[in-house]
């Protein structure tokens, strides 16, 4: 127990005060649902990469992996290597499309491909199960660390961490969570570098001497230099490998972090930064893990009478910090381990909240459920005006045009569909230049949007849409339509603004009817 050490108490209180301070500061800039669940998309790629690293490098990575290396040698690295190999996969296959298709949760993106009424509850349940399982692991770490620091009971430690995190997330939302995770990531990286450096220094800056010593004290001898516990059965091996490499791509608290940046490109850059930070930290586990074997495996000061490690197997890093840096470093590492836990718990709590609010209760987007009275009125009014023209592009019947135009303008007027997106959608079936003036007169677009040459803010997208509308091949082959619409971004908008989904359906039916 370290409670007699004033440094421990001071650093612990500093971490708690820091988390509360960040929360209070963040609460001032949390004004909307988007701020609360996705930080308003205002996080930069570097900040998000740091926060992703902070979210990912949990107590399991810091305390658990070093403990696994301590007991089994290289087997711990198999997991570390699998985790880091999963980040390029996240970047290649998930980050970019997820940011473009979703708003707050993974279910947003998946309901683009599947029936929303079925996929949302399913994903919500899966996300909540994952969050709860992950939370249990973090709470076990919290219990052990606080027990070691203050001698508090396990239950009291869990209640304390839980109450602090509920306060942080409830008041500060995603902005507070992001900053807590960033601070924690910096602290953890600094701690890792410090412990690795001091361990390296203890062996005269000779990594070979460190490894030789580890081999000489570990009962498995040189077997700790390679994996001994991997399954020999090919199917089990493939199963474990796939879980390690693709597992990260299914962690809901990691995936929601991609919604906090501006666009898909920033989401990719976030993943690059995150991979760099996490990879660097995992490389530090080589000297930390083998250093722990070399320095504390046979040291009775860190073991109980029965030979078990003091405080449990997961406290290897903490004992190593004491061996190389004394009481103060141990107190600092305990405080960082605690910060690690509260940051990850904050991310998980927010993920659970967004899943319940956005996917299960659907409280964040009432318009998507259909505001029938206002929507019907607006749609009819707009249809009356727009319906008497026969625009170039695909020839539409009156009912087809009502279906396709009405919801766009309706959502545009409610402020749910950005003007550029609305015009892109309209441009897929109509001459956007002709309709721009009408939309302006209706108040659906602003003056500067109308005046801007080349289209509504996102001219390139509009031009692509027009090219598509005028493309003979596309008009003659309805089978290619979903892919083409996806390329021009129209289907992305349809997903992002569920009311506009009818437009895609209408466009498809138009092409089927008028090849």
């Amino acid at each position: 127990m370290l409670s007699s050490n004033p440094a421990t108490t001071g650093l612990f209180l500093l971490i708690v005060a820091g988390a509360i301070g960040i929360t209070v500061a963040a609460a001032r800039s949390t004004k909307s649902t988007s701020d609360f669940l996705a930080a308003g998309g205002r996080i930069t790629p570097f900040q998000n990469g740091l926060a992703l690293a902070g979210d990912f490098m949990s107590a399991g990575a810091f305390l658990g992996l070093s403990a696994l290396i301590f007991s089994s040698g290289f087997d711990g690295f198999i997991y570390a290597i699998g985790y880091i190999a999963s980040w390029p996969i996240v970047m290649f296959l998930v980050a970019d499309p997820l940011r473009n298709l979703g708003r707050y949760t993974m279910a947003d993106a998946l309901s683009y491909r599947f029936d929303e009424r079925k996929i949302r509850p399913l994903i919500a349940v899966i996300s909540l199960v994952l969050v709860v399982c992950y939370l249990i692991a973090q709470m076990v770490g919290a219990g052990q660390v606080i027990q070691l620091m203050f001698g508090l009971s396990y239950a009291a430690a869990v209640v304390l961490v839980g109450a602090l995190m509920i306060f942080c997330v409830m008041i500060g939302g995603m902005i507070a969570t992001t900053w807590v995770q960033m601070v924690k990531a910096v602290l953890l990286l600094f701690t890792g570098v410090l412990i690795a450096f001091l361990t390296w220094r203890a062996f005269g800056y000779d990594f070979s001497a460190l490894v030789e010593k580890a081999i000489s004290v570990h009962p498995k001898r040189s077997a700790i230099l390679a994996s001994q516990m991997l399954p020999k059965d090919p199917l089990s091996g493939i199963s474990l490998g796939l879980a390690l490499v693709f597992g990260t791509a299914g962690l809901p608290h990691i995936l929601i972090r991609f919604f906090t940046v501006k666009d898909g490109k920033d989401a990719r850059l976030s993943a690059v930064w995150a991979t760099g930070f996490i990879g660097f930290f995992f490389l530090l586990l080589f000297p930390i893990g083998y250093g722990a074997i070399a320095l504390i495996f046979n040291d009775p000061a860190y073991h109980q009478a029965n030979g078990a490690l003091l405080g449990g197997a997961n406290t290897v890093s903490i004992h190593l910090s004491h061996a190389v840096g004394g009481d103060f470093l141990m107190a600092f590492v305990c405080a960082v381990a605690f910060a690690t836990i509260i940051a990850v718990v904050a991310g998980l709590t927010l993920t659970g909240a967004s899943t319940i609010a956005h996917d299960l209760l659907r409280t964040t987007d009432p318009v998507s459920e259909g505001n029938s009275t206002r929507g019907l009125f607006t749609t009819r009014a707009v249809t009356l005006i727009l319906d008497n023209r026969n625009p170039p592009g695909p020839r539409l019947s009156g009912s087809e045009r009502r279906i396709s135009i009405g919801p766009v303008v309706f959502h545009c007027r409610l402020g749910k569909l950005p003007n550029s997106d609305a015009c892109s959608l309209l441009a897929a079936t109509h001459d956007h230049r002709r309709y721009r003036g009408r939309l302006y007169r209706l108040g659906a677009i602003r003056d500067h949007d109308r005046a801007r040459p080349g289209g509504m803010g996102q001219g390139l997208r509009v031009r692509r849409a027009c090219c598509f509308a005028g493309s003979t091949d596309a008009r003659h082959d309805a089978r290619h339509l979903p892919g083409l619409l996806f390329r021009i971004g129209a289907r992305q908008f349809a997903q992002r603004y569920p009311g506009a989904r009818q437009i895609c359906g209408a466009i498809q039916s138009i092409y089927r009817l008028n090849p």
Partner: protein
Amino acid sequence: MDDRRWRLRVIYSGILLAVYFAFFFMCAYLPERMAAHVSSNSPTSVAMWLGAAIIAGSIAMTGLYTVSADRS
């Protein structure tokens, strides 16, 4: 543009998965070879260096992909 990006995604993912699973199964089936020292002067093993190379390669691959994707 998207076709090229998807091609990049498939190629990069394929390379990464091939290298990772090759390493994984070498560790599973050839533990003695992987535990062998890389040289007579160093106690570090082949597995340690390959593992470090995969970590460094993963970082490099993300940077390379984002440059390629931005150009496409």
